[in-house]
């Protein structure tokens, strides 16, 4: 019986899990607990003041919905301070904020006969999808907003939401880190293709 047949017979996944547990116990190196190192991110949330900023705040909320628009009531892009991407020197969005708001509001009027702020969540998503390729930078802006939330750019709300622990001292000795044993056949003897 070859390794694969053996795996199939044992039910590959459960065997692999078993292997990992055995190997982890055999590894007598001291446990290095992940020891998460997250620090508070300095800086304040930009609060919407102008009409443009109010429209863009609604855009953020449509991209990653927050307590009032997510039926589960969890925090979203607004709570993650994602309006700050406008000010973030990494991006050129500040110069385009008015243009974004104007185009998005125009599309909202065309599609649903009302400004973006007055639309339902589903209508807002429709508008954002419809408009995303008319101004190429918009797709990038959507990405930056999602990434600000899920990547913890301005606070840790999004990291906690996805269950990502963030900075750490290493997972080497965490039992679930690796299967710690061969799990497939290899094509090459030394890792180098001929």
């Amino acid at each position, binding site marked *: 019986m070859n390794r694969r047949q053996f795996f199939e017979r044992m039910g590959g996944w459960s065997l692999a899990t078993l292997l990992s547990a055995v190997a982890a116990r055999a590894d007598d190196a001291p446990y290095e607990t992940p020891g998460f190192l997250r620090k508070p991110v300095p800086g304040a949330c930009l609060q919407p003041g102008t009409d443009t900023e109010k429209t863009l705040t609604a855009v953020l909320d449509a991209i990653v919905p927050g307590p009032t628009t997510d039926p589960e009531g969890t925090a979203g892009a607004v709570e993650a301070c994602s309006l700050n991407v406008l000010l973030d020197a990494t991006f050129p969005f500040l110069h385009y904020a008015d243009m974004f708001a104007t185009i998005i509001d125009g599309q909202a009027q065309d599609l649903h006969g009302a400004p973006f702020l007055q639309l339902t969540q589903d209508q807002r*998503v429709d508008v954002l999808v419809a408009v995303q390729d008319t101004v190429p930078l918009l797709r990038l802006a959507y990405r930056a907003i999602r990434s600000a939330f899920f990547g913890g750019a301005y606070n840790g709300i999004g990291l906690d939401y996805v269950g990502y622990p963030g900075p750490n001292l290493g*997972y080497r000795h965490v039992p679930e880190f690796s299967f710690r044993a061969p799990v497939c056949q290899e094509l090459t003897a030394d890792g180098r293709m001929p």
Partner: protein
Amino acid sequence: MEAFDVVIVGSGFGGSIPALRLSQAGRKVLVLEQGPRTTPASFPQDWAFRAQAKLFTTYTSKDYHVILRYGRGLGGGSLTYAAAMLRAPSEVFDYRDRDDYRVWPAGVTREVMNPFYAKVEETMTVERASWSDVPRCGGIFAMMLDKMGKTADRTMYPIHDCRQCGFCMCGCPFGKKKHLGHNYIPQAEELGAQFRTDCKVDHVEKDGDGWIVRYADAQGHARGVHGDQLIIAAGALETPAVLLRSKKWVPELHPQVGKNLNNNGDVAFLFRLPPSMPKTYPYMGRNNAGVITYAFWQEHKITIHPGAGPPALVAAMDVFSEKDGPKVPLGVDFKHFVRDQYAHHLIPALAIGLVDGEGTVTVNDSGLLEFDLPLTERLKAYIDRVADVGRSIAAANDAELLRTGGDTFEHGDAHPLGTCRIGDDDSRAPCDMYGALRGQKNLYITDGAAVPGGTGVNPSLTIGANAERIAAHLVGEGA
């Protein structure tokens, strides 16, 4: 004016490797690097924009559809790469493009490259990961292949005693990943090579048979330095930009400089696993997740490797599902999808394969770099072929292949090549097989810009080996 035997622009693989070899041959070498000198403390475990912006220079294509970035600092991309260092399979060197043009020079084959690969591997202490080093999501990827009767191989890295913290692409804060600042650079410095950091080269000017390199120093002062020989190794994006900014002083610049931008055939996607499979934890462990499959190389000329994916990156992709997942990466469905899938059921993966370089790097009137990487019909067809292979892996495992949209990360991000490529044809390739820029004296290109096409695997080892090969020629060791 200060004078050196050799001035080198850029301290990545293409710059630091010749710096050492030329210093060993007794040449007086100066390396100018726009980024800073780093220590492990320079590398915070932080995926947020402001931290990333310190580590990488990022460009979006003119149509904003593709992102390309490179690591900046003494050691270039080696500081923040995921450190997979693999030899390109033999067939890479025989690749012919759509015009049946052999993109690598006939004199450069895998056999010719082998001793230079070995030199880089030895100097950078590259070794194969053990199975204990393969993080969970790499192991599960390998199991998925095993289940369909295919192979996966453990990958080679210059990483030792890894803590598996999952932040290689932010730089290793524990000093476990051996970048060029641990080997080539200090060895060259020992022999007298100077590495000046925070020095950005603007352009170069002819100076008899040599060159003047114009740069801004750390204080922003304009400086000039003479080199009898000049090596430009500022990476596949910046090397052509330096040359194109120099047009006024280098009138007979080869017309192919900046052309043939190749994305190394990179295609990013995700596997979404069924709940019955083990949890993936894609944030645990080294970022290049320990294994690569060569099983599709023979038939499709692609390799695929899983990569740990920080949530910021996964969420930034335009992920969409062909089944019951989110149709657009916006709104409640997408938010819940990332939460429900990210930490336990996703494996990010990157396919690499052989495509023609159809992009272009240019500079605008202000001298700023711009690039185009069009989604041509050929590239689209290639991406679809890759997706079919991905789907076959998914189907064998009751998993789903999640595409990442027709743009940005799907075919961009990390591996630009070919913009000043070497080659046998005078009109198609700006450089001869030894990196000498055609039409110029004493000017060489030794970085990813010189590598003429896709490498079939992550490219740094091939860039390094090619730089070793050219350096051997420059010091008269032949090759």
